[in-house]
């Protein structure tokens, strides 16, 4: 009979201390600090504009990042940012292996935090195991309840911080205190509370193993000079238990203490070599170094190294030579290529931000009908103009049409509106219907350019269109 499912073994990572553990704590503090703190930063943009430094204003259709302000039309900047992030990830991976997975991925950071809570309440690996295997005593119920309660509070804070990026943080915080928030905000808080609770409390390494696509294709960014967590096979084997005072002659340095296995948040044995579930967090290095110090052997039985270095050392040892000192090849075709793409995209984005116009005009030629013949024999074309006033001031514009000798340019609108004074309030889009009349000069399309002149600064925005005649 076929088995219905494969039972996932629960992992109880043991406490460990050392360089990489400290690095992970530091990364956690910095990253969570940014995540929770960033929405509270203020940035003065003048009156009538939000003063939140990082703000995605969905209702107002604007994105704010300190001095940068983007409109929906400029969403290519977001695309550029995503490309930069993706290539940046490839770049870091080709150099340092899965450093992102091990230190910076939200899944890793929150899981780490949740395991810390678990350890704080229930004790270290063995205590937790005993508690799980034991009967449901009052103590077990109490400890489990406390753990899950803290997890849920962290989850709620995560969801709570998320919504601050999409609303004015102080206003929203006040609403939160009075429990007076829109339903959409509540649903986001609840959804992110539950997803954090589930992902970091229960799913943990399974996300990396089964859900995350990056874990599966990261080997495409690896080459033989990428840093990976490696077990010095030639030094460690043959492994075996070791008693104090025994000679190290004729045996490897690995004392088979399983420290590297029990601290692993992914539940793997690094001594089996590079494997897809290794997230390169370095905790096994810390664990092994602690043990090596105790048995008074050099550190680094498990260490960051490249496949090339490993092979060279192994080869030298087999030939009875002194092992060469490992070296890191930072500059390789792959890393140069990634760096080049990043520089290119970064330069394009920088250019786009620096050269950003404060006024844009879009011209849509009316296609139904394409042209109108008037009683006098003149030809009229109609256009819709969208004027984007990206400044924070009310502006008024004049319009001119190049490439044609128009007899008249008229505005179609209610009230007394002239094409020489098209008013667009600050930070809005003005829509105007304009008709251009000219004497018939020839058949077909004539390319024309609409010039929009800011009456207060004289700055010009242009848009190409065409004029159709029978």
């Amino acid at each position, binding site marked *: *009979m*076929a*088995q*219905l*499912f*494969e*039972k*996932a073994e629960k992992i109880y990572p043991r406490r460990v201390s050392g360089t990489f553990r400290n690095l992970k704590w530091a990364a956690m503090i910095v990253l969570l600090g940014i995540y929770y703190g960033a929405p509270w930063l203020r940035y003065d943009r003048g009156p009538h504009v939000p003063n939140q430094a990082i703000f995605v204003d969905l209702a107002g259709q604007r994105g704010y990042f300190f001095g940068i302000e983007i409109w929906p039309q400029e969403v290519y900047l977001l695309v550029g940012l995503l490309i930069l992030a993706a290539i940046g990830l490839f770049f870091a991976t080709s150099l340092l292996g899965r450093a992102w997975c091990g230190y910076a991925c939200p899944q890793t950071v929150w899981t780490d935090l949740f395991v810390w809570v678990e350890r704080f309440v229930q004790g270290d690996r063995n205590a937790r195991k005993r508690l799980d295997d034991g009967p449901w005593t009052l103590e077990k119920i109490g400890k489990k309840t406390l753990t899950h309660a803290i997890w849920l509070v962290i989850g709620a804070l995560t969801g709570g911080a998320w919504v601050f990026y999409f609303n004015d943080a102080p206003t929203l915080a006040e609403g939160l205190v009075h429990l007076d928030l829109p339903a959409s905000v509540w649903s986001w808080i609840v959804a992110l509370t539950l997803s954090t609770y589930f992902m970091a409390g229960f*799913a943990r390494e*399974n996300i990396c193993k*089964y859900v995350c696509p990056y874990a599966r294709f990261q080997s495409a960014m690896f080459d033989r000079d990428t840093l990976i967590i490696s077990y010095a096979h030639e030094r460690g084997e043959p492994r075996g238990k070791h008693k104090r005072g025994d000679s190290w002659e004729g045996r490897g340095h690995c004392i088979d203490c399983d420290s590297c296995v029990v601290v692993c948040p992914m539940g793997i044995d690094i001594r089996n070599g590079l494997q897809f579930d290794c997230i390169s967090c370095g905790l096994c290095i810390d664990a092994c170094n602690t043990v090596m110090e105790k048995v008074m052997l050099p550190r680094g039985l498990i260490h960051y190294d490249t496949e090339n270095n490993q092979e060279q050392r192994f080869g030298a040892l087999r030939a009875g030579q002194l092992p060469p000192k490992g070296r890191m090849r930072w500059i390789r075709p792959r890393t140069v290529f990634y760096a080049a793409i990043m520089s290119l995209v970064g330069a394009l984005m920088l250019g786009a931000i620096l050269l950003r116009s404060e006024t844009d005009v879009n011209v849509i030629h*009316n*296609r*139904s*009908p394409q042209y*109108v*013949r*008037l*009683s*006098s*024999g003149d030809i*009229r074309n*109609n256009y819709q103009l969208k004027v984007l006033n990206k400044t924070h001031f009310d502006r008024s514009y004049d319009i001119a049409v190049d490439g044609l000798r128009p007899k008249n340019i008229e505005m*179609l*609108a*209610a*009230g007394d509106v002239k094409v020489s004074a098209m008013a667009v309030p600050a930070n809005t889009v003005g829509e105007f*219907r304009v*008709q251009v009349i000219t004497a018939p000069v020839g058949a077909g399309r004539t390319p024309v350019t609409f010039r929009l002149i800011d009456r207060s600064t004289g700055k010009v925005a242009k848009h190409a269109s065409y004029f159709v005649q029978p």
Partner: protein
Amino acid sequence: MTKDHKGEGNPSGPEVDEVSGIQTTGHEWDGLRELDNPAPRWWLIVWMVSIVFAVGYWVIYPAWPTLGGHTKGLFGWTQFEKLKVEQGEIFARQREHRRKFHAASFEQVNQDPALFEFARAGGAVVFKENCVACHGAGGEGRKGYPNLNDDDWLFGGAVGDIYRTIQVGSRSTHVDTHAAMMPAFGAMLKPQEIDDLATYVGSMNASQPPSVAWTNGRVLFETNCVSCHGAMGEGNRALGAPQLNDAIWLYGGDHDTLVQSITKSRAGVMPAWEQRLSVDDQRMVAVYVHSLGGGE
């Protein structure tokens, strides 16, 4: 069960893959055998929850066809009800604008940008539903159906005139309809005379060197046509007589078409909309048509 190789050494038992030591499902395609690797437990749970969800969905929402229709679901939810509710919300939002528009004159509408845009948008919808079949999607017209974008109006291009035309139509069944009627000159003039007349009418507004036909045509025009179309062919809106000395032709300004128009006359019909559309809908269409660019 995958771990203990039940079928090992037992030719009649399940087959076990030699390389991986995993039991196979017994399926084989061209030598490729399928290993029985079980799915993870969470996957199985999600699958089962989906089934439970589906059952709940059938109970709450309309789901299964029956002989007389379909199961109604616990709360009788339908898309039609949803539509009605959502439309109700839209109508409620429109109510204030509609009341304002109802009370406003065309002059007032034209001075209030918000009201004007509301009327124009509403008029565009009514236009698309009722008028495009003849006048075209953008009111561009075609042969026999006037272009509403230009500045040539049979019965007047002020917004009030346009509203009147929409109400009563042209040669329609309405008692007050615009009823301009041109005689068919085929029975009154000889073919040669009609030909000359067409020559004159076709080049009235051009500085054509006069030919014999043109001169004869002008005499015929002065005798037969000026009473309605005016001495210079400037037309007469009160009668619905088109202007002939401009660049716009409803049926075409070429010689053959003009001969046909004079011989048989033209009598296009536009229905009256007074009984078909609400007063405000008609007024909105008038605002929309007037705003296309040729309004007076």
